[in-house]
């Protein structure tokens, strides 16, 4: 039995629309958001690497994205880049995100001077229900 749900884009007949002309089809998986959040890290204040830990409670490694401010040159306050950030000049100023079955981690290098007030680095994250690892 052929069953399911399809929604076509405006201007396309659902009976003849191709997959790319659909807004939604239950035939295909979708990225579903589990949680979003934001915060500020300031390795300059503490004088060492800062690793932010975000518990997700999913029990498996999820897919995720992290958007973050970067080093104050070339970064600007309130400009958000897709992580990771690797710093070419020298020192430990990188921003790296990684996930386990319990947490999302965002590591800010000890030499990172962010563009926000007091050299802080603002970040935002999206954790999906979808798996990021088998």
């Amino acid at each position, binding site marked *: 039995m052929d069953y399911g*749900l399809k929604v076509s884009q405006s201007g396309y007949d659902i009976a003849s629309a191709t997959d790319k002309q659909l807004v939604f089809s*239950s035939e295909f998986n979708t990225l579903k958001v589990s949680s979003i959040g934001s915060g500020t890290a300031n390795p300059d204040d503490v004088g060492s690497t800062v690793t932010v830990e975000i518990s997700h409670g999913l029990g498996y490694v999820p897919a995720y*994205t992290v958007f973050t401010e970067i080093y104050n040159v070339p970064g600007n306050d309130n400009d958000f880049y897709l992580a990771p950030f690797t710093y070419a000049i020298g020192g430990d100023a990188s921003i790296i995100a990684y996930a386990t079955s319990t947490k999302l981690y965002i590591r800010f290098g000890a030499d990172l001077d962010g563009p926000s007030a007091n050299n802080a680095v603002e970040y935002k994250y999206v954790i999906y229900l979808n798996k990021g690892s088998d």
Partner: protein
Amino acid sequence: MGNYGIKVSLGGYDVLTATDRQLALKSSKTLQKVKVSGSTTVAANTEGSITHNLGYIPQFLVYGEDPNDASNMNIGNASWLYSGLAAWADTTKVYWEIGVIGGGPFDIYYYVFYDVA
């Protein structure tokens, strides 16, 4: 207020017993929605952008032609000086720049989502 909403399970799963990961749609879980997508080109070491005017930092994806191999599309990220393609957003635009000397124009493909980053 009662329990209400829409669930659509993936093929092969009973919607009454499916886990969240076995659903194609659950109205209480956000699906990313595209505000604007498109393609353009950008010259070497030149900033390009698309205006979204959302008033907040949106989620985005930017792909750009690899200056060393036009058949490869790199994903834009924060590694400004090394990756070749930097991509970033503020509350009005999404930007990109390919940090290479000479060459181009390079193909760019972008998605800007309604969803808050």
